[in-house]
C-alpha cells in the first residue's frame, strides 16, 4: 500500500505543477516550446528529467544482473549522446528557428515531402519508445501492489493526457525539472542506504561474483511472463498453489502469473535464449548480450546506437527549441552531460548488489524489477518497505517524464506536420495519442524493454542523425539526398528489426548485426544521403541556408529568425 501511496503522490505532484503552467498560453508556439523562454539550467534539468526513462531508472540495473557489468556501456552511450549534440547540432538547430525536426527539414531543404517523411519517422521512434514506458508502469505497479497490469497502464495514460492537454510544453518543463530532482534523490539515497545496510559479507560477495549454478537457499521465483526453462537435473519445486512439481531434465514452460519455490542446493535451470550466469563472463566489462562471441563489436554497436540516437530523439530535440537562443541551447547540452553523469554513477551499484542478492530474477527474465526488489532483501521491516515505496515513486516519475515528452512530440507530428492545425486540434491529438499508446501497451506485457528502446535509438540514429549533421555542416545536401538517406536508414533498420523478431535465429556475427543493426545502417544512411546529394545540384540558396545556422544571434534580426514582415519570395 505504501508503494501505491507513493505513486499517487507523484501523480498529484505532476498534475499540480502541470496545471500551474496553464496561465498565459495562447499559441501553438506557447504550447509546443514554452514560448522559448527557458533558462539553460532549468532546461537541462528538464532535458535530463525527460531523458531518464524507465530504461535508465530500472532497465540498466536489470541488464547488469542479466548480461553482466558490460551493460554499463548503455549509460555511457546515453551520456555521450549529449556531447555529440553539444558539438554538432545544439546551437545551429536552435538558430534554424524551427519548432520540430520536420520543421527543420523543411526550413533547411524546402521539401514538404521530407517534412511528412520526418513526421512519420517521429511516430515510429515515439511508438518504439513510449509503449515500453507505459508497459513498465503497469508491471511495476503490479509488482509492488496487487493491482492488475492494465490499471497502471491506464493511470499513466490518463495523467499524461491531462497534464499535456491542459498545460502543454510549459507545464512539461516544470514537471520534468521537478521530476529530475525527484529521480536523482530517489535513486542516490536508496543506493547509499543499500550499500551501507548490506553489510561487509554481501559487499565482499558483490565484488567477488561466483557462478549462479546452485540455489543458496529455498528461493521463490514468480514469473510475470511466459518463460521456457532448461532443466539439467531432476528438481522438485513447490508451486504457488502448494503442489509439488517434479521437473525432469529438459525444457519446461512456466506460464506468466505463476510462481515456484526452488529448494536449497538444487541446480539452477537455464533460461532458453539467455546465456547462463557465468561469473567470469559476467564480470567482463564488455557487452556480449546473446553470447555470440563478439563482445567488442557488440559494445561498439550499442555505443553507436545510443550516442548517435540520442541526437535524433525527436522529443529531446524539441526541448532544445525551448532555449531563448543558440548559446543557451549549447549550454543546456553541456549542463545535461553533467546532470546525467551524476545519475549514471549509480545504476551499477544496484546491478552488482542485485547479482549477489536476487540472482533468481534471471530465471523469471524480470530483471527489470531488480531496483524495487532489492530493499526487501536487506531490510524486511518498515525501512525496507519505505525505500521500496520511494524507488517505486522514482520509477513512476521516470515513466511519466519520458512519456510526457514523447506523447507531446507525437501529437505535434500529427497535428503540426501531417495536418494543418491550431491549438485546439493539438490538444485533441494529445489525448488521441495517449489513448492509442494505452491500447498498444495493454497486450505488450511480455516485450523486452531494453531491446525495444534500443531499437528506438537505432531508428533515430539512422534517420535524424544524418539529416541533422549533414543539414547543419554540409552545404551540398539536397532534398532528394535527404529523403533517400532517411528512407534508407528507416527501411534497413526496420527490416533488421523485423528479421530479428520474425526471422530464423541467427548466431554469431550475423545475428549480432541483425539485432544491433546500428553499426551498418547508420553509415549506410549517411552514404545514401551524401551519394544522392552529390549526383544532384543544391539550390542557389542552400549555402546561405546552412551558413545562417552558424551565425550568432547578435547578428540575426530578432529572436528566432527574420521579422514576420521580411521580404518573401516563393510560397507554398
Amino acid at each position, binding site marked *: 500500500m505504501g508503494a501505491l501511496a507513493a505513486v499517487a503522490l507523484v501523480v498529484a505532484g505532476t498534475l499540480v505543477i502541470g496545471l500551474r503552467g496553464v496561465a498565459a498560453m495562447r499559441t501553438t508556439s506557447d504550447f509546443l516550446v514554452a514560448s522559448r523562454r527557458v533558462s539553460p539550467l532549468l532546461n537541462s534539468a528538464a532535458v535530463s528529467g525527460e531523458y531518464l526513462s524507465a530504461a535508465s531508472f530500472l532497465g540498466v540495473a536489470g541488464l547488469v544482473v542479466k548480461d553482466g557489468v558490460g551493460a554499463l556501456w548503455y549509460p*555511457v552511450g546515453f*551520456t555521450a549522446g549529449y556531447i*555529440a549534440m553539444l*558539438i554538432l547540432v545544439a546551437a545551429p538547430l536552435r538558430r534554424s528557428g524551427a519548432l520540430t525536426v520536420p520543421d527543420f527539414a523543411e526550413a533547411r531543404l524546402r521539401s514538404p515531402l521530407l517534412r511528412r517523411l520526418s513526421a512519420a519517422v517521429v511516430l515510429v521512434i515515439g511508438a518504439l519508445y513510449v509503449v515500453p514506458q507505459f508497459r513498465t508502469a503497469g508491471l511495476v505497479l503490479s509488482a509492488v501492489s496487487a493491482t492488475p497490469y492494465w490499471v497502471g497502464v491506464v493511470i499513466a495514460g490518463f495523467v499524461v493526457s491531462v497534464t499535456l492537454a491542459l498545460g502543454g510544453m510549459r507545464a512539461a518543463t516544470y514537471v520534468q525539472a521537478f521530476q529530475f530532482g525527484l529521480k536523482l534523490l530517489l535513486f542516490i539515497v536508496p543506493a547509499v542506504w543499500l550499500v551501507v545496510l548490506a553489510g561487509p559479507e554481501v559487499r565482499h560477495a558483490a*565484488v567477488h561474483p561466483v557462478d549462479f549454478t546452485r540455489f543458496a537457499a529455498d528461493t521463490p521465483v514468480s514469473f510475470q511472463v511466459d518463460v521456457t526453462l532448461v532443466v539439467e537435473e531432476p528438481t522438485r519445486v513447490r508451486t504457488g498453489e502448494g503442489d509439488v512439481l517434479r521437473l525432469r531434465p529438459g525444457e519446461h514452460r512456466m506460464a506468466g502469473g505463476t510462481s515456484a519455490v526452488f529448494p536449497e542446493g538444487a541446480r539452477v535451470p537455464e533460461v532458453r535464449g539467455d546465456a547462463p550466469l557465468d561469473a567470469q563472463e559476467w564480470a567482463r566489462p564488455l557487452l556480449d548480450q546473446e553470447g555470440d562471441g563478439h563482445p567488442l563489436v557488440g559494445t561498439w554497436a550499442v*555505443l553507436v546506437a545510443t550516442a548517435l540516437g540520442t541526437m535524433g530523439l525527436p522529443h529531446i530535440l524539441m526541448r532544445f527549441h525551448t532555449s531563448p537562443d543558440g548559446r543557451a541551447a*549549447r549550454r543546456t547540452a553541456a549542463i545535461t*552531460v553533467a546532470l546525467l553523469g551524476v545519475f549514471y554513477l549509480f545504476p551499477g551499484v544496484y546491478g552488482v548488489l542485485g547479482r549477489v542478492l536476487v540472482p533468481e530474477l534471471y530465471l523469471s527474465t524480470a530483471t527489470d524489477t531488480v531496483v524495487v526488489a532489492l530493499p526487501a532483501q536487506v531490510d524486511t521491516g518498515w525501512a525496507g518497505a519505505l525505500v521500496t515505496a520511494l524507488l517505486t515513486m522514482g520509477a513512476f516519475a521516470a515513466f511519466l517524464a519520458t512519456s510526457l515528452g514523447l506523447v507531446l512530440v507525437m501529437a505535434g507530428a500529427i497535428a503540426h506536420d501531417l495536418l494543418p*492545425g491550431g491549438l485546439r486540434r493539438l490538444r485533441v491529438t494529445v489525448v488521441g495519442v495517449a489513448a492509442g499508446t494505452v491500447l498498444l501497451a495493454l497486450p505488450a506485457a511480455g516485450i523486452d524493454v531494453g531491446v525495444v528502446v534500443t531499437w528506438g535509438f537505432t531508428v533515430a540514429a539512422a534517420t535524424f542523425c544524418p539529416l541533422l549533421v549533414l543539414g547543419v555542416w554540409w552545404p551540398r545536401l539536397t532534398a532528394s539526398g535527404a529523403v533517400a538517406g532517411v528512407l534508407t536508414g528507416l527501411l534497413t533498420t526496420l527490416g533488421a528489426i523485423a528479421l530479428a523478431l520474425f526471422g530464423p535465429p541467427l548466431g554469431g556475427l550475423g545475428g549480432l548485426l541483425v539485432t544491433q543493426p546500428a553499426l551498418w545502417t547508420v553509415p549506410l544512411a549517411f552514404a545514401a544521403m551524401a551519394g544522392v546529394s552529390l549526383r544532384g545540384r543544391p539550390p542557389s540558396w542552400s549555402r546561405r541556408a546552412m551558413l545562417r545556422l552558424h*551565425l550568432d544571434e547578435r547578428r540575426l534580426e530578432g529572436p528566432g529568425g527574420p521579422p514576420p514582415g521580411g521580404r518573401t519570395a516563393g510560397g507554398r
Partner: protein
Amino acid sequence: MPQRPRRVTVTSPQTRLAHARGRARGRWRVPRLDPADADRALRLYRRQRAQALRALAAVLALLIGLPAVFALWPQAQEVRVLGIPLAWPLLAWLPYPAMMLLARWQLRRAERVEDG
C-alpha cells in the same frame, strides 16, 4: 451605472481569414544573409567545424578506445584495487567526469569562437 461595452479586436477581413486558416506552418522564405553577415558566418562556420572535429576525435577516442583496451587487456578484470576489479570503476565511473570535462572544454571553445 452604464454597462461597459464588450471589447472586441478590430481586424481586417483578410486578417480574420488568415487566422481562420491557421498560421501554424508559416510561409517558407528564401534564406537571406547580408554580405557582412555572410562573411562572419563563413568564418564562424570554418572555426566551429575545426573545433567540432577536434572534440569529436576526443569523444571517439574514449568510446572506441576504452572498449578496445578492455578487449586487448582482459587482465583488467583480474587486477583488484581495494578489492574491486579495476575494470569496473573504469567503466562505471571514469567516463562521466571525463565526459563532463570534455563538454566544458567544447562549450568554452565554441563560445570563444563566437566572442572573438
